[in-house]
């Protein structure tokens, strides 16, 4: 598999470039890049659900925001960094298990609705429970509990390191037999059940795994950006993440990363236009109608033949 080896080489080369290149960039851009790596991690974890398991999560922000909040809350209340980190890890597990359980319990389209509802519930909660979350004022992670003491480039390297580890794990997962089972469930769940796979268990596990990766991104966000607001668990971020994945191309891992980068840059540029939400809405419509399988696949329609066939079967079973 020459192509396989090539791809790994390209991946390593670009990773090395990503680590070294910002040395020559001003700190502000390094900061933007750091944030982008965090969002890329969110996009990758969501792609594990949407692209590789056929589980459209519309509440991915919950997995991201709740651990970030947990870290922030613990960091403002206690002196110990270890306690803050531990409570964040606890929150990662708790929230992914809770949402994963509820979402996979309903099955089918219920997954979309339940995840979206969880996002709404946490959003309202983050606003209403002012004593804990700061409500509308948001929550500030104290500087000594964050990466504020590191230089911009060091921070970027730490985030990139953790991000590429998690991303590499996601990539390895999709290539493993476990990933194949997930793809099988996406294509035809009933057939997988008939073959003896307990699909419910797999769907729950991958939701928890993807939730954990998003949670790691959330903690990184709290460490780097340090300002937490209710939007981080809200439906807006959740649905935006879905757009990143679909815009870039689900089931490619690299597509959602590019999608996130493209979308966030577009948003920065368009944010000053008054009718911005209309543009955003029209973009959603355009993606759904004209690029249902993403921009990456517009460019390489033939390089992934077997996978394409899998998605087609998937579409037929969805009918």
């Amino acid at each position, binding site marked *: 598999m020459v192509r396989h080896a090539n791809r790994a080489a390209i991946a390593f080369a670009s990773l090395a470039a990503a680590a070294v290149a910002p040395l020559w960039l001003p700190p502000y851009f390094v900061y933007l890049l750091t944030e982008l790596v965090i969002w890329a991690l969110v996009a990758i974890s969501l792609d594990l659900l949407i692209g590789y398991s056929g589980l459209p999560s519309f509440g991915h922000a919950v997995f991201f925001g709740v651990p970030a909040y947990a870290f922030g809350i613990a960091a403002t209340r206690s002196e110990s960094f270890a306690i803050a980190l531990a409570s964040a890890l606890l929150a990662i597990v708790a929230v992914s298990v809770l949402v994963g359980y*509820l979402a996979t*319990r309903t099955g089918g389209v219920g997954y979309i609705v339940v995840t979206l509802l969880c996002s709404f519930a946490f959003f309202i909660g983050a606003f209403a429970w002012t004593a804990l979350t700061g409500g509308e004022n948001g929550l500030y992670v104290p500087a000594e509990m964050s990466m504020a003491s590191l230089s911009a480039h060091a921070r970027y390297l730490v985030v990139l390191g953790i991000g590429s580890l998690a991303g590499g794990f996601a990539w390895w997962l999709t290539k493993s037999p476990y990933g194949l089972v997930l793809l099988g469930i996406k294509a035809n769940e009933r057939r997988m059940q008939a073959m003896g796979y307990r699909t419910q268990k797999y769907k729950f596990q991958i939701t928890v795994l993807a939730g954990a990766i998003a949670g790691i991104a959330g903690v990184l966000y709290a460490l780097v950006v340090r300002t937490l607001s209710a939007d981080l668990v809200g439906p807006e971020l959740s649905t935006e993440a879905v757009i990143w994945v679909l815009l870039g191309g689900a089931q490619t891992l690299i597509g959602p990363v590019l999608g996130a980068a493209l979308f966030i840059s577009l948003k920065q540029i368009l944010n000053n236009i008054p009718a911005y939400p209309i543009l955003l809405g*029209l973009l959603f419509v355009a993606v759904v109608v004209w690029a249902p399988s993403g921009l990456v696949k517009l460019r390489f329609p033939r390089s992934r033949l077997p996978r394409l066939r899998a998605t087609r079967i998937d579409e037929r079973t*969805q009918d």
Partner: protein
Amino acid sequence: MEQIAAQLANGLVVGTTIALTALGLTLVFGILHIVNLSHGEFYMMGAYFTWAAHSVLGNFWASAALAALATGLVGGGMLLAFAGRLAGASPLRWALLTLGFGYVLRELAQLVFGTDFKLVGLPIEGTVPYFGGLYRVVVTVASIAMIVALALFLARTRYGVLIRAVASNREAAAVAGVSAYKVYAWIAFISAALAGAAGAFMLPITSAYPTMGLEILIMAFVVVVVGGMGNIRGALVASLVAGLLQSTLILVMKPSFATIVVLCALMLVLVVRREGVRAAW
């Protein structure tokens, strides 16, 4: 005592409003397989249309009827315009598409009507003992009447039979000569018109504002999920429970906490009772 009775009566109004909205959602989901995230905006559209018609006509009930009709045509038309293109598409794509609709409609409402609250005076004055305002009672009765009428329409009329035929097996219905497209058009229209009517009814109570659709969408979706996606009877029961629960909880806590408690309570139902009946009639 008086207060509790008033809140229960209020709960009935909220519950029937949720029921009207959720019915439209569950119909469109059960038959067209659309996860309609812009349904709340249809509700908002109904309220704004009523306000606009009321400022011209001056009669609330005529404006409400017109608004429901207009919402049905506009909202149903939007869904139908993409139904051909997205035939057989995954629910994910529909969810995203209607989410886009929602953004556009909300922003349009803000551009056209502004962000301030648009209010219409109560069309019926007076109170009923133990129930509070007479208008609320009339609206509750009217909503229940509409739900019953819809149930009869689906159960007894020729069109109702055709709709159920397409819902249970589209291919077989098509082979038997039923035009699926016509059925889709009817369902899209009815669904949006129900949301429009609910919005129109709530206009004198909550007034109209651009984000009014979000809250009702959340409730309607919970109700649809808990009732069993596509199941009408389940959705009805769940919406009444949700409305009553929320209005009584408001007596003891902040409204937003009440919403969360209702959400959690209904989610608990999911934990106890695994997925409801799917599109079963």
